[in-house]
């Protein structure tokens, strides 16, 4: 009985791995295929300028989607991240303009991001309040707080040294370097480290994880803290790219980040998924948005397309799970 169960689990895992490899492969094919098709219709789409715009302008979304993937894999959700990035960007810019050392203006958003998210994680884990309530409340606190404190003022005259995103590493722009390094480190850590595996265990079944010696509460706090770390790094890439920082929260940013995480193959039921898919999905979404302009479709359709994409992925994921469960029952 138990031997069959173990064998079944192993088979399911092998199938699961193959499936996620294919989810990522599918996304990579979609990214390249779309580039070829749209480039055929309008060659300017593939101009270096446009490709760089797509990658540089959206690297921060891919970075934030890494943390969001971890949150969703652990069985939670966060809708405050967009507002948090807006607040941190404003803070970082204000500190830089006030004349503080550059390193301080870079460190503050990262440290504060970790603290705010870890606090939310603690409320979710230890006080047992659903993440949607905590983060919905936090979103409005951050959003309203930012506008009422700054009055939506623009931050200009940023010092030259502030622009981290303008730097290069061996000719590769910094945002792309950070995106690739962050994705690779997170992917390896989640795949091979015990604490990385604990996230999957907690999201899969918190009670089973507890019986296996994982502390689900501590894991959830850790996941939120890491999510805050990536949100802080994303802020850094986002804010140091801008010449003028508008002290408002980018509207709908949390939805873009959640979409990237979910479309990237993170199962919304918790417990499975990878961060590589999330990064590919973030690039795909940016590419679609850009492609609309080049094939003369109004950008006002972007949100509808994004909503349709997330819906299709979620439904496909669940239907696949049900089929697999049905096969399991027959055996």
């Amino acid at each position, binding site marked *: 009985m138990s031997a069959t169960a173990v064998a079944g689990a192993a088979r399911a895992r092998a199938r699961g791995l193959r499936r996620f490899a294919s989810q990522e492969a599918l996304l990579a094919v979609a990214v390249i295929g779309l580039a070829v098709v749209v480039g055929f219709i309008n060659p300017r789409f593939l101009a270096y300028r446009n490709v760089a715009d797509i990658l540089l302008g959206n690297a921060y979304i891919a970075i934030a989607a890494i943390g969001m993937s971890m949150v969703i894999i652990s069985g939670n959700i966060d809708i405050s991240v967009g507002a948090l990035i807006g607040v941190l960007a404003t803070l970082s810019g204000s500190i830089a303009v006030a004349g503080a050392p550059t390193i301080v203006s870079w460190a503050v958003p990262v440290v504060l991001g970790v603290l705010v998210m870890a606090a939310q994680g603690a409320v979710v884990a230890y006080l047992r309040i*659903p993440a949607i*309530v905590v983060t919905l409340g936090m979103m*409005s606190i951050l959003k*309203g707080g930012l506008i009422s404190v700054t009055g939506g003022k623009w931050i200009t005259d940023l010092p030259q040294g502030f622009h981290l995103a303008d730097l290069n590493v061996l000719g590769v722009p910094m945002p792309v370097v950070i995106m690739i390094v962050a994705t690779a480190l997170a992917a390896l850590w989640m795949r091979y480290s015990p604490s990385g595996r604990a996230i999957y265990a907690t999201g899969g079944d918190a009670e089973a994880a507890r019986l296996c010696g994982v502390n689900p509460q501590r894991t959830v706090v850790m996941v939120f803290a890491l999510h805050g770390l990536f949100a802080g790094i994303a802020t850094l890439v986002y804010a140091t790219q801008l010449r003028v920082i508008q002290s408002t929260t980018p509207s709908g940013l949390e939805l873009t980040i959640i979409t990237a995480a979910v479309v990237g193959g993170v199962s919304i039921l918790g417990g499975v998924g990878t961060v590589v898919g999330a990064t590919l999905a973030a690039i795909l979404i940016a590419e679609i948005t850009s492609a609309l302009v080049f094939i003369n479709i109004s950008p*006002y359709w972007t*949100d509808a397309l994004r909503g349709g994409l997330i819906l299709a992925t979620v439904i496909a994921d669940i239907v696949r799970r049900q089929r697999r469960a049905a096969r399991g029952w027959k055996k």
Partner: protein
Amino acid sequence: MTVAVEKTPARKLPRWLARHETLLAVILVIALLGLGAFNERFLTFDNLLNQGRLMTEIGLIALPMTFVIITGGIDLSVGAIVGLCAIMLGYSWKTFGFPLPLAIVFSLFVGGLAGFVNGLVITRVKVPPLIMTIATLALYRGLAEGVSQAHSVRGYPEWFYFLGQGSLYRVPTQLLVLVVLVVVAGVALDRTTFGRTLYAIGSNETAARFSALNVDRAKLIVYTLSGLASALAAFVLVSRVTTTRMDMGMGYELDVIAAVVLGGTSIFGGSGTIWGTAIGLAMIQLLKNGLALTGVKGDATIVVIGAALILSVLVASSLQRRRD
């Protein structure tokens, strides 16, 4: 037995007084009187009626949201449905050339359909309500943006404004509609099989299924009602502010969920009342108006509402734990 009954009232509060709704009502009256003493413009008949006018859109959506949350679900797409229905109302009239009454009916139909789609995927495909309605939040708002291309519609005929700006015996028209619907929803939840089914689903869905309750149908109805109420709110809103814009209803989900949760409905499902939601709604509006009168701007009030949402869930769950 009788001795015990005689003894307890001395030490413990009577049961009806310890209820969440009663406590809230007491707080509400104290807050009303406090604000009245603080600012003489507040406790006037006209100001209170005007506040009733302003809270109607949120209130209409809060009624089915109470149902949804009692079943253990949530609907984050309500604000987006308001936007979509406002655009559908304006565009079907101005651009497609529907007569205005037909455009209103069409917009209500679109709202009901939007809610029905939510319910259908939630019950048939078993997508968790949170994720489904986050996805349709993007989708429905995106449709409103795509159809309208950011153009607004205005210039409605005079009779159209009666619902949003008119009064009957000095009472705002839409407030009367809300009061009637509060009573209908309250009675439906309290006294009908349908209403009791919602509690059964929220307390234990598997048990409800084994009790031969039609769980899927009840959920489908609840989400459809949520879409329909959002469409009605869109109608009231357009009629009140006289224009149609694609960003209408943005952020409504926060106010609606805050009103429901503040009114004592458990975010985990299984308990809550319409009467509580009505008081929660009044408290949210009171908070907004009170803050506005003391000179706080609109953006700061959402900070307070967000904090109120988290705090009320915290307090409710810690009380629940103490009772257990």
